[in-house]
C-alpha cells in the first residue's frame, strides 16, 4: 500500500500535554466513579431534579401553546427546543420525541424559507399536551403518536425538498 509523500498530521502524544490528573489522582477518581455509593448518590441527585424538570417542561409546553396561538413561530420553536432537550430527563420521553419532531419541522421550514403548515404545528402541540399526562396509557399512546408525527414531518420535508430541487 502506498504511503503519502507528504503526510502533514503532527501527533501530540498523551505525555506531551498536561494530564487531567496525575496517576495517583486518576486511580483515586476512577475508584470513586466505580463505587456503588457514588452512582447511588448521583442517581438520587438525578431523581431530586426530576420533579423540577417536569414542572419546567410543563411551563415550556404552556408557553409554546401561547406562542403558537399568538402566531409567534420563533417563540414556538424556542419552546420546542427547550422541551426536546429536557423532557426525557423528566421521564416524558414521548413529549421529547414529539417536540424534537416539531423543532426539526419548523427549523427546516425556516431555513428553506418554505410556508409553514399550521395544522402540523397544531397536531404536535396537541399530542405533546396529551403525552405529558402522567397516565401510563397516555404514555403508550404518546409513543405511537410520536411515531406517526415523525412520519408526517418526514413526508412534509420530502415534499418541500422535492419542490425545491425540481428544475424550473
Amino acid at each position, binding site marked *: 500500500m502506498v504511503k503519502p509523500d507528504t503526510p502533514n498530521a*503532527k501527533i501530540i502524544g498523551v505525555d506531551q*500535554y498536561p494530564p487531567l490528573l496525575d496517576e495517583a489522582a486518576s486511580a483515586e477518581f*476512577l475508584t*470513586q466513579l466505580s463505587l456503588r455509593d*457514588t*452512582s447511588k448518590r448521583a442517581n438520587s441527585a438525578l431523581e431530586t431534579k426530576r420533579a423540577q424538570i417536569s414542572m419546567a417542561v410543563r411551563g415550556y409546553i404552556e408557553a409554546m401553546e401561547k406562542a403558537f396561538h399568538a402566531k409567534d413561530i420563533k417563540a414556538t420553536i424556542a419552546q420546542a*427546543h427547550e422541551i426536546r432537550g*429536557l423532557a*426525557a*430527563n423528566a421521564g416524558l420521553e414521548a413529549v421529547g420525541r414529539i417536540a424534537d419532531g416539531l423543532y426539526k419541522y419548523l427549523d427546516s421550514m425556516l431555513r428553506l424559507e418554505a410556508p409553514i403548515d399550521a395544522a402540523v404545528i397544531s397536531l404536535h402541540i396537541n399530542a405533546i399536551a396529551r403525552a405529558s399526562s402522567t397516565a401510563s396509557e397516555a404514555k403508550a399512546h404518546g409513543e405511537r403518536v410520536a411515531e406517526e408525527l415523525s412520519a408526517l414531518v418526514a413526508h412534509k420535508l420530502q415534499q418541500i425538498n422535492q419542490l425545491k430541487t425540481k428544475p424550473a
Partner: protein
Amino acid sequence: MPSSAYEHLHALVVEDNVHMRTLLRSLLHALGIKNVSEAADGDAGLREMRNHTPDLILTDLSMMPTDGIAFTRQVRTSQNSPNPYVPIIMVTGHTERPLVESARDAGVTEFLAKPITVNNLIARLAEIVERPRPFVKCETYFGPDRRRRKMKDFTGPWRRHDDTAEEVEVR
C-alpha cells in the same frame, strides 16, 4: 483542604437551559467534582474559561448565539485559548450524523446523549481519565485523535508517517 487528589478538578458547564445546567452541576457534585462553573452559551463559556481555566468542559450543542461546535473550535484553535487540550464532552440529543461529525471535527472528546443518565456520565468521565487520547494537529484539524478502532479494509487516505495498511485505527 481537599480530601481527595481529584477534588481540585474544575468543570465548566456550557448549556443554555438553566434546568439542564443545574442538573449537570448536581451530578458532577455527586460524582466528586465540587468546582463547577456555568455559562449559558459559547461566548460566555469562553469568557468563563479565561476567568477560571477549567480541567473539563461539558457543553450543549444547540445554543444561541454561539453553539457548542463553534465554542469547541474556539477552545481548540483560538490563539487566546487558555487550554486547547481540555477534554470536552458534548451533551446532546442530536443524533443526526452530519451534526455529530461536525462536532467531532471541531475537536469534541466525548459525546453524552440526552436524556442524561448517571451510568453514561460516569462512563464518559472514566474514558477521559483512563484512556486520554493523543492530539492531532494538521492544516484542517486540531483535537483529540479521531481514530479509535481498527479497520482492516481501510484504503486511505494516508495522512501520517506511521500509517500502514496493516495497522491503522479509524474512528
